[in-house]
């Protein structure tokens, strides 16, 4: 039943929680507590990452079935149970979460100085929630983890954030919660219809067409906010701006992917007819997102806000790819989510590096940084290029596949979504030029130090992945190839049924 021979996914999910529990019992002077908390959190997350590598090596790529499954009945009369497992779609997201958490902890090593222990606890709880969400095969568990992510994130922004942190934290919380409530409604309906909350069981359900439409809207309300899609994206720039660096990294790297993952896990397989019916609307919203938010990004004066808006544009490509419903589009969308997790995370880290030194995110405060921080300039350039989808970097295969896939559905959609190529270059190069190029005119810039060894360590895995994903994306696409094929076959079969009936 389980390729690892032991309950790997449960271990991955709850080990961070154990780490957080240990942190609770650390006593002593404040400096000692802080230091111990950092090391404990780092080791916990590293062990989790190390364990999660088992997934990478022993995942069977030839099948679309769920693997590493753990199942226990809890309340069989209600169809509730404890059910974990990963398939090709979710396995890489689990790895993304386990990879980014230690990086985030390293990135907060020096920049977080107040309530370090609580901060680390929040991060470890967050990791539990993220992994649990991606590994859940029970709808109710999924919902609990999905919502549970919000709590530590709310605290991370609200306690360790910037000046308007409370406003931003509430905005994040309310936007996502309002959507989730509708999703809860849909989940309850499904439970009521199927008598079980197990996702594999639910997939056997045939849902009437008009019911599909309502349920699609309910799920959509939750996932669209999480992605975020235009026009429910405005919580994201605020949240990013106020969040501490590591918070932004997780927010962009993993939390935004929850929406796309939700579409792939629920909306698309469960509601095929509604997916077909709503696809044009999603295309419209995605294309608007790409062009609108790219333009808005160009006008930004705040580095983090600019990258936040660019995230919305990139996620527009993702939602487009999911709903074109062909192999290139879907694979491209999943790949784009992964690469965006790496690249935008890295870009937020890049902002964090100079923020730690100058304590400002305002672009006008900088200029000429490349002169004093050449290594940093090279890294930033690399991630900028990945963000504008230069072939050979992680950003390219996803965007390329989505555009190729979209063309097969509607060439105009592909064309307008392709504007991200031009506009993306505009805002990213404009940012780079104003921050790193030019003559140094401000005194505080003159004496900046280049990357420290710790910062090097945080960037190194991201650099490797950015190039690896760009040069040899097959090692990632092969993970979800079988699952995407199965998903498409399912979709075709589901659509063929009513067509036959209609004849």
């Amino acid at each position: 039943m389980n390729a690892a021979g032991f309950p790997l996914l449960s271990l991955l999910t709850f080990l961070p929680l154990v780490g957080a529990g240990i942190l609770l019992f650390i006593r002593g002077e404040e400096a000692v507590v802080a230091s111990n908390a950092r090391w404990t959190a780092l080791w916990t997350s590293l062990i989790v990452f190390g364990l999660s590598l088992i997934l990478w090596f022993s995942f069977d790529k030839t099948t679309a079935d769920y693997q590493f499954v753990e199942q226990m009945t809890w309340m069989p009369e209600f169809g509730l149970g404890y059910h974990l497992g990963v398939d090709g779609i979710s396995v890489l997201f689990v790895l993304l979460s386990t990879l980014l958490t230690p990086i985030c902890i390293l990135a907060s090593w020096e920049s977080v100085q107040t309530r370090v222990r609580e901060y680390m606890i929040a991060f470890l709880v967050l990791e539990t929630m993220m992994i649990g969400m991606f590994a859940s095969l029970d709808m109710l568990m999924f919902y609990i983890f999905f919502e549970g992510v919000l709590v530590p994130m709310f605290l991370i922004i609200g306690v360790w954030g910037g000046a308007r942190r409370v406003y931003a934290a509430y905005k994040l919380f309310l936007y996502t919660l309002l959507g989730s409530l509708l999703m809860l409604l849909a989940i309850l309906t499904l439970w009521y219809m199927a008598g079980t909350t197990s996702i594999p069981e639910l997939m056997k359900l045939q849902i009437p067409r008009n019911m599909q439409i309502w349920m699609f809207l309910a799920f959509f309300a939750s996932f669209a906010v999480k992605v975020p899609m235009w026009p429910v994206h405005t919580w994201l720039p605020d949240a990013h701006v106020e969040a501490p660096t590591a918070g932004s990294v997780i927010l962009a790297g993993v939390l935004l992917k929850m929406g796309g993952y939700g579409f792939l896990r629920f909306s698309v397989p469960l509601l095929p007819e509604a997916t077909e019916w709503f696809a044009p609307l999603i295309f419209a919203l995605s294309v608007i997102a790409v062009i609108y938010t790219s333009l808005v990004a160009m006008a930004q004066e705040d580095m983090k806000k600019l990258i936040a808006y660019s995230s919305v544009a990139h996620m527009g490509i993702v939602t487009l790819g999911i709903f074109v419903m062909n192999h290139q589009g879907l694979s491209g969308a999943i790949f784009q989510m992964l690469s965006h997790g790496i690249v935008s995370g890295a870009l937020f880290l890049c902002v964090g590096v100079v923020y730690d030194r100058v304590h400002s995110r305002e672009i006008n405060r900088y200029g000429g940084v490349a002169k004093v921080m050449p290594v940093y300039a090279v890294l930033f350039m690399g991630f900028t290029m990945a963000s504008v989808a230069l072939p050979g970097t992680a950003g390219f295969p996803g965007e390329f596949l989505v555009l190729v896939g979209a063309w097969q559905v509607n060439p105009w959609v592909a064309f307008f979504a392709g504007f991200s190529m031009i506009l993306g270059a505009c805002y990213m190069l404009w940012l780079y030029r104003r921050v790193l190029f030019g003559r140094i005119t401000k005194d505080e810039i003159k004496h900046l130090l280049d990357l420290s060894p710790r910062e090097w360590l945080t960037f190194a895995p991201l650099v490797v992945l950015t190039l690896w994903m760009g040069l040899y994306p097959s090692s990632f696409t092969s993970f979800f190839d079988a699952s995407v094929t199965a998903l498409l076959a399912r979709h075709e079969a589901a659509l063929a049924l009513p067509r036959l009936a209609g004849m």
Partner: protein
Amino acid sequence: MYLGAIFFPLIGSLITGLFGRLIGDKPAQWIGVFFMALSAICGAVNFFNVALGHAPVMVDLGTWIDVGGLQVSWALRYDTIAAAMVAMVTLISTMIHIYSVGYMSHDATPTRFFSYLSLFTFMMLMLVTADNLAQLFFGWEGIGLASYLLIGYWYERESANRAAMKAFIVNRVGDLFFMMGMALTFWTFGTIEFDGIFQGVAAAQDKTIGGIPAIELIAFLLFGGAMGKSAQIGLHTWLPDAMEGPTPVSALIHAATLVTAGVFLMARMSPVIEYAPNALGFITFIGATTAFFAATIGCVQNDIKRVIAYSTCSQLGYMFFAVGVGAYQGAIFHLITHAFFKALLFLSAGSVIHAMSDEQDIRKMGGIWRKIPLTYAMFWIGSLALAGIPFFAGYYSKDFVLEAAYAGHGWTASYAFVMGMIAALLTAFYSWRLIIMTFHGKPRADHHVMEHVHESPAVMTLPLIVLAIGALFSGALLADYFVGHDWLAFWNGSIVNQPNNHIMHDAHEVPSWVPLAPTVAGVVGIAVGYIFYMFVPAIPGRLAASFPGLYRFLLNKWYFDELYDAIFVQPARKLAFWLWKVGDAKVIDGMPNGAAALTASAAGRVTRFQNGRVANYAFTMIIGLVLFVSIFLFGIGR
């Protein structure tokens, strides 16, 4: 050998870039040169084996993308056209690396420069040896990146940064069309590997998309990409500004290699675009217009590098209309001879700039030919080749291109011939205007500068001499293979002319005045140049005074920059700001914030005990939850 030609520059780039500071400036530079030279040797050997030995080779390097029938591999495709390009690129790049050792000797970070230069070469080589459109796009974007980095090499200059950004973004506009072309190619052929595409052409001829034949649309879209990279009219605005980069960059990238990538793409895709007659007509028209338009601007510019840049733009127009009339072989021939003499001209210009203490305005030069005789001679050779004077390289290729235009069918071909002839005359004219204003007459620079005028060191003049040999003999040596009686065996199927395209034959059957005409136009242009600037120097001023409108129109480069600024840049800026401040802040955020404020005040009245926003929001949530559950229950009860 095959791998070496491509990957030695990458190794060189990594070593100089990553370890340059450890190794030290001078050794690192020579390491860069060494790897480039190795690559050039491989390139030359490969050219003999593949092109002259008629033995095309495929080197498979592995899978890149493999998703649901879309398979793309990393591979090196050595056929005649690729081998010819590799040989040319590696040779010229080596010369420019050597030259740069001298030219950049006073620079603060020469290793960074060498790293970029080698990286560029690697990307260009990946482009020309690509086995599929995606790998070609990899090289295509890679050279775009390298060009961006090199134009903005002196990043403390605002003008350099602006030019670099402009180059990247204008190219991206073309790239969008390239990307769409790739998507359509996959839609049409089910593959983007060249072999698969070329085999599927016959079957794909009936496919239409939106009423347009798919092959026509592919040709249009890919040409859109080529227009950006090769600076054709409309997307040319980045090229003159790109002269902000160091001069060796202008020689390598903005004359010999990068800008010719578009021409290469058209030739590589010849089996497809041969079947797109309308697109070919359009290509001819754009090429011919560019050849003429850039030449007119070249006549009035005062920056030595900008004159040569417009000349490059104009010569690229020649290559495109050769493609348009179906004479791809002629286009590639002109591409290669042009690479030699244009690189020579740029490097000579660099030598002049070096001698004149970084002065680029030809109005402040003059009277220096005795002081730098070697550079002066090199400039003459380059200009003679450019003007198409007999037995210099440009003579063979330009003549052939114009003959092909004359022999081509349709009004666009005739238009191309006429425009090409006018441009040939203008080319000779502005070249001699440049020579005379730069080297002759009274010195117009101040005496400090004049005292320092000196011939460049050997490390700079040696590459000049090698390139001059190319500018002298490459035409005569290669003509038979590229466009003469051996062309069919030489190209060996790497360029395809459709069965009823006899242009390669017809171009040699034109009336006897046609081959003579470009030479006459060149000589007339030179004569006019001498009269205007040597013998009666009052004429240009009087002309400018009597046609002020036309003069300003040319001086301001047909107002393209101003036009684009008004149509695209400013509106985009305003729209961006408006969307942010009104769209996001007022409209989208207005709704929830307004709702929040409303509930807050309402809740404040209802629940007086609980103050503060937390409670308000929680209250809203509970109300919401109740509402939803009610609806849910209502639904079940029905």
